[in-house]
């Protein structure tokens, strides 16, 4: 008796300790390549080191934070990031959910449809930017399509040369690229809803709309939360679309998102500390927004 009691708990404990063994690679790797660098960036933000200077950095406390938080340049780039995030989040979320619902209710070609929608995500961002730059060229397809749709002729919709349109253009490229990805996530989530529940509701007389609103969507909550947090983080981190577009002539001010600002501040202006400040601020923003998102959805869940 005594022996059994001793072996069971210690077996559990020993067994659980193995958990550390398995996660050890992650701890090692992320410490070196994620935690240390972000701490380094934080440390840099408290100094005044210029990128090329051979002198050791001197500590200046939060002076850089003051400078950045009072510079209109930073707030402009933050505004650009938030504008982009909202602008991309809504279409991405709604379209991917809509497509997923439509696809799940099809009896055939489900896989082909998802593959088609996902195919842009397979391209590298350099290639995608290249293709779209040609499409957005004033002589390119975008103007041709817009002219055809709007019934105008020869009108230049200024996809890259108008400060407001270029924001729309970056959102278009981003949504195009990722809508398939999130559609697949939603389809997977819908697939997890037990058929029995759906069938029961049909027998009870629920029509398609009621089924969707009362059964599918609520049961889809875990996926919905996951997708919305992912879209949020993706959008806040966006970099390559804006970078590649501005390299080729688009106005920097219109799409100067925080990540691009960080990059330019570090390399073009050699100002590593201020780049570090913006990085830390962006990181905190992402943490806060993600947490708020999770809390909000958990609250809703409790209401259900």
């Amino acid at each position: 008796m005594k022996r059994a009691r001793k072996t069971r708990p210690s077996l559990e404990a020993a067994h659980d300790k193995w958990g550390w063994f398995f996660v050890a690679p992650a701890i090692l790797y992320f410490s070196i390549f994620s935690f240390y660098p972000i701490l380094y960036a934080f440390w840099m933000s408290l100094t005044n080191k210029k990128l090329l200077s051979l002198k050791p950095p001197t500590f200046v406390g939060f002076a850089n934070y003051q400078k950045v938080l009072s510079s209109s340049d930073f707030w402009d780039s933050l505004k650009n990031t938030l504008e982009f995030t909202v602008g991309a989040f809504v279409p991405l979320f709604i379209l991917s959910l809509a497509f997923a619902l439509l696809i799940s209710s099809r009896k055939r070609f489900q896989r082909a449809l998802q593959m088609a929608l996902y195919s842009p995500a397979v391209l590298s961002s350099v290639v995608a930017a290249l293709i779209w730059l040609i499409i957005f060229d004033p002589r390119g397809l975008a103007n041709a399509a817009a002219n055809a749709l709007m019934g105008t002729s020869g009108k230049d919709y200024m996809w890259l040369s108008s400060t407001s349109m270029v924001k729309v253009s970056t959102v278009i490229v981003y949504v195009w690229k990722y809508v398939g990805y999130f559609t697949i996530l939603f389809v997977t989530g819908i697939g997890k809803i037990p058929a029995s529940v759906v069938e029961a509701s049909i027998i009870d007389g629920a029509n398609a709309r009621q089924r969707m609103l009362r059964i599918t969507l609520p049961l889809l909550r875990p996926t919905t939360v996951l997708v919305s947090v992912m879209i949020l983080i993706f959008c806040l981190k966006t970099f390559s679309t804006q970078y590649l577009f501005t390299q080729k002539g688009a106005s920097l001010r219109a799409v100067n998102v925080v990540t691009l600002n960080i990059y330019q501040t570090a390399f073009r202006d050699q100002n590593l500390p201020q780049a570090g400040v913006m990085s830390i601020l962006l990181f905190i923003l992402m943490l806060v927004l993600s947490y708020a998102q999770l809390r909000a959805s958990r609250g809703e869940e409790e209401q259900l």
Partner: protein
Amino acid sequence: MKRTLSAILLAALAASALAAQAPTIPALKGKKVQLTLWTHEDANRMPLEKGYIAEFTAANPGVTVNYVTYPTDKIRDLTTTAFAANQGPDIFNLQISDAYPFMANGRVAPIDFKMTAYKDVKDLESKYLPGTLAPVIEKGKAYGLPLELTNYCLYLNKKIFRDAGLDPDKDYPKTWEDVMAVSEKIVQRNGEIITRRGFDFRYGVEPLICWVPMVEQLGGELISKDGKAIVGDDAWLKVLTYVRDFGPAGKNLGSPTYTAARKVFDLNKNEIAMSLSGLYQEARIIKSNPEFYNSKDWMVIPYPQWKDAAKRVPNNFYGHYYVVNAQSSKLAQQASWALVNYMLSHGEAYLQKVAIVQPSKSLMESKTFKEMPYSDVFAKDMSAAHVVYYGASSTKIDALLKEAFESVMLAGGPSPKEALERLRKSVTEVLASE
């Protein structure tokens, strides 16, 4: 005729190159050293320099050279990062306004004159056009050897002029007002979309070169002698307004979102009539469109001036210098200077094959230079020009200028006055933080 002449010259050069013996440097005898050279991509220059490197390493067997090229718009960022990690290449070249931070932070080494053909700084300066080495001379020491010095003049496509009913030899634009008027006559559109441009600016990485001379012609300044930023509001506003009128929000004659003017110009496909570029563009035209080059359908005219210009200011010239990493070993530095000196001693070959101009007096007087079409136009402008602004924050100021001018040009952007205020504020901030 021109083609056979070029062919003969090339053959002669090739023959002389084969016969050429790179110097064997005593200091490198019997020693082994590996050099890394970073430079920006140039399809014409790479084979030329690789050839010289081969000759140099043949004469100095202990030396190996790793020659790497990078995209022009990335090389600065990459070099900066490498140096930040103390991993910079032994030899590299950057545009002077990008290279200055390296100098200012002591990251580049002074010339070791014993490895070169020059005795000292004074001797070096005397062999080049006055003022062209000033950007790399500090406190009596020289830090770079010139790879190229460029100023822009206006290339003009005669065929398109005639097609628009203009006589290129009489009607070519002499003033900025002319440029706009002529462009309006030449431009063709499909609705609002431009299919043929008259003139278009050179956007991209060189606003200090493009826009500032226009301001200076009207008496404005980027930075005054007493350190004030953006002086001469009338001048600045006139240029900003002109630029706004030129773009899609105004007369719709061009914009940064169309394909770069100088690249389209070479193709001669009735797409653009005028483009700003340097003498090196001629080598690009020969390579990509020899028929166009050999026809007489293009010409080069001086950089336009305003009708009521306060003073004549040709395009500012900018330079690339080869510099050496101060953290490289003494041996590597010696080998680097020796190699750079050897490569650059072939000024005429660089001119002939790459059409880049080293501002050495001997080259300016050489037959090769004089025989390049319109080299006199470039030389005349260059002699009256001054070097582009450089300083500790020139890269950032460059970016601020680009933003100011391009934002005014694009639809929905700020008014010239707003852009001017904003520019002045940011440049003042930058100067203050230096």
